[in-house]
């Protein structure tokens, strides 16, 4: 019997026994659906991380001189405590590094903390208060929607002006213009000179709840001790120039900190790779957990199919005897039942793929996770589904093939 004939027969049997086949393909269905959905989340977040998130938080070809990395996964307590003991980055450090960079770069200072912003009787709580120098907007790719950023002059003199994030502007001013009005931060009034374009959110975290004031403005004292910055941001024109700048910065910092050659850096030059490493750490956990879930449901699916196939062989003993008496060889019977279990599993996998894609779209629509279906997962789903079917079918099919036609025909 040709393989094609075996599959046609298998599909007929499945169609004739819809309920039973439905149950038997449930396991594979769930396995493949969860494979696709989970993979889509990892895949989507991965792409988001590399394409957007890292760029948003860091900017292209940008590094940050910091006391410790901005993002870190699985950091032991001892390392964390060591990081906290490190000296902080001083204004003088930032100035020295900036002065040493001979290649064309854009630099900015940045310090931040969470706090409240007031306007009239209203309070916007849990706002990221950023004290930064004027090129900060350029490095962070923050476009001004209304008004203007503050100037270098305003930055140096610490003029109390503020540029609001879209979320803060909406919260405090609703649809009136904030420009020219004064908000209060830490009891001091700041004149609003600009509002930044809406940034949306990353993984559910809103990116619009911030206020930027000049690095030398009084708010600096709210976020950091005097003379200390959280980060010096350096944006180069290219990756190569960024690496050069990082080497220069490292050299300057090591000599300022009097580090001997055998001593490790007590500062970091953080790039978007840092965020990606942080994400890789998380996704590695998913990559370990995910196959576990998928394998468990596929194994269960395989066992269910094997059981149903054994039942089916027992029920159809007479049919098998008849087919053998009509000239079916062992391999014909084997092929027939293998095709049947493979077909059940493949149908289950197909439904699973559809459900997985639907689930992905649903996750995209209702949750902040940027899920996106990976074509590889669809291929893997089909292959694994059919594979489970074949493996689960081997034992029942070989039992059917070995049946003695005389005994089988006599079966009631």
């Amino acid at each position, binding site marked *: 019997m040709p393989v094609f*004939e075996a599959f046609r027969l298998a599909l*007929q049997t499945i169609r004739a026994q819809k309920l039973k086949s439905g149950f038997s393909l449930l396991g594979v269905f769930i396995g493949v659906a969860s494979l696709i959905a989970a993979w889509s989340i990892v895949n989507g977040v991965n792409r988001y991380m590399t394409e957007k998130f890292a760029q948003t938080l860091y900017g292209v070809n940008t590094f940050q001189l910091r006391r410790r990395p901005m993002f870190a996964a699985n950091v032991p307590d001892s390392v964390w405590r060591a990081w906290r003991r490190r000296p902080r980055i001083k204004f003088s450090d930032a100035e020295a590094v900036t002065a040493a960079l001979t290649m064309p770069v854009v630099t900015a200072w940045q310090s931040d903390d969470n706090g409240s912003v007031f306007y009239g009787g209203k309070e916007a709580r849990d706002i990221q208060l950023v004290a930064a120098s004027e090129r900060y907007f350029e490095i962070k790719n923050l476009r001004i929607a209304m008004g203007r950023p503050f100037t270098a002059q305003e930055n140096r003199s610490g003029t109390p002006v503020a540029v609001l994030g879209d979320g803060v502007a909406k919260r405090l001013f609703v649809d009136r213009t904030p420009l020219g009005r004064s908000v209060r931060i830490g009891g001091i009034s700041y004149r609003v000179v600009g509002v930044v374009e809406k940034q949306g959110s990353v993984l559910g975290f809103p990116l619009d709840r911030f206020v930027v004031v000049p690095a030398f403005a009084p708010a600096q004292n709210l976020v950091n001790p005097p003379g200390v910055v959280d980060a010096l941001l350096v944006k180069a024109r290219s990756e190569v120039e960024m690496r050069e700048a990082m080497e220069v910065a490292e050299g300057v910092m090591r000599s300022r900190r009097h580090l001997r050659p055998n001593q490790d850096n007590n500062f970091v030059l953080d790039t978007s790779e840092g965020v990606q490493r942080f994400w890789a750490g998380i996704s590695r956990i998913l990559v370990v957990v995910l196959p576990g879930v998928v394998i468990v449901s596929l194994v269960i699916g395989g066992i269910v199919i094997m059981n149903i196939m054994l039942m089916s062989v027992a029920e159809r003993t007479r*049919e098998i005897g*008849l087919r053998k008496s009509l*000239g*079916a*060889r*062992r391999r*014909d019977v084997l092929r027939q039942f293998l095709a049947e279990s493979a077909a059940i599993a493949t149908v289950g996998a197909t439904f699973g793929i559809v459900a997985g894609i639907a689930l992905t779209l649903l996750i995209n629509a209702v949750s902040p996770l940027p899920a996106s279906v990976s074509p590889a997962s669809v291929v893997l789903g089909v292959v694994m589904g059919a594979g489970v079917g074949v493996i689960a079918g081997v034992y029942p099919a070989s039992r059917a093939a070995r049946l003695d036609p005389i005994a089988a*025909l006599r079966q009631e």
Partner: protein
Amino acid sequence: MTAPALQAFRTGDTPLPDIVILAHKLTRAYDMGGEVVRALQGVSVQIKKNEYVAVMGPSGSGKSTLMNLIGCLDTPTSGEYWLNAQKVSDLDDDALARIRNKEIGFVFQTFNLLPRATALHNVELPLIYAGHGARARRAQAAHALERVGLADRMAHRPNELSGGQRQRVAIARALVNEPSILLADEPTGNLDSTTSGEIMQVFAALHGQGQTIVMVTHEHDIAAHAARVVTLRDGLIATDQRQAA
């Protein structure tokens, strides 16, 4: 009248060309949990082309065992079995399946039709295992159904057919590969006497067209349709008689 003595067959001989079935000292013993049951104890019989033979005997006489051996569903413990000048008593499983497919058309007491398949598809089954293409299969199966007078029932499923019609579908299935022998096991056992008569007419017509038929039955009036009756008792041939049809 006793069947005319054919040329004596000795081990090592080859049967004459017009002999379809040649059994030589066939024995078949079963091991039933330590106890050996000797179902056949040395059966020798020769059946010529276009003979119509009924095999009779009480239950336990070994007629089913002989039937299984003739139908190549089983192999003898000792002895030789030649089918159409081919020695099949020592073939392996796959070769036997091929012989069943090409040389033997089974008709069972309980019809053994696939319940979910149409009459046409049921008749097509042996052709699938013979490896024929779909178009050729359909044409041949349709032709076989016409031969048994069911040209207008091809698309019906077994549960839409009467008992007699079902058995005729089974006969069409048995004939579709143009086998050397039509092997019927109690073909009228599940049918009323009128329908049994119809089936016997079909058999007579096929015999008239040159078909070799071997039929196992325990009903004398059914056996009466055959030209030769072989009776088994205790695993041996008791009588072998020709009779006027």
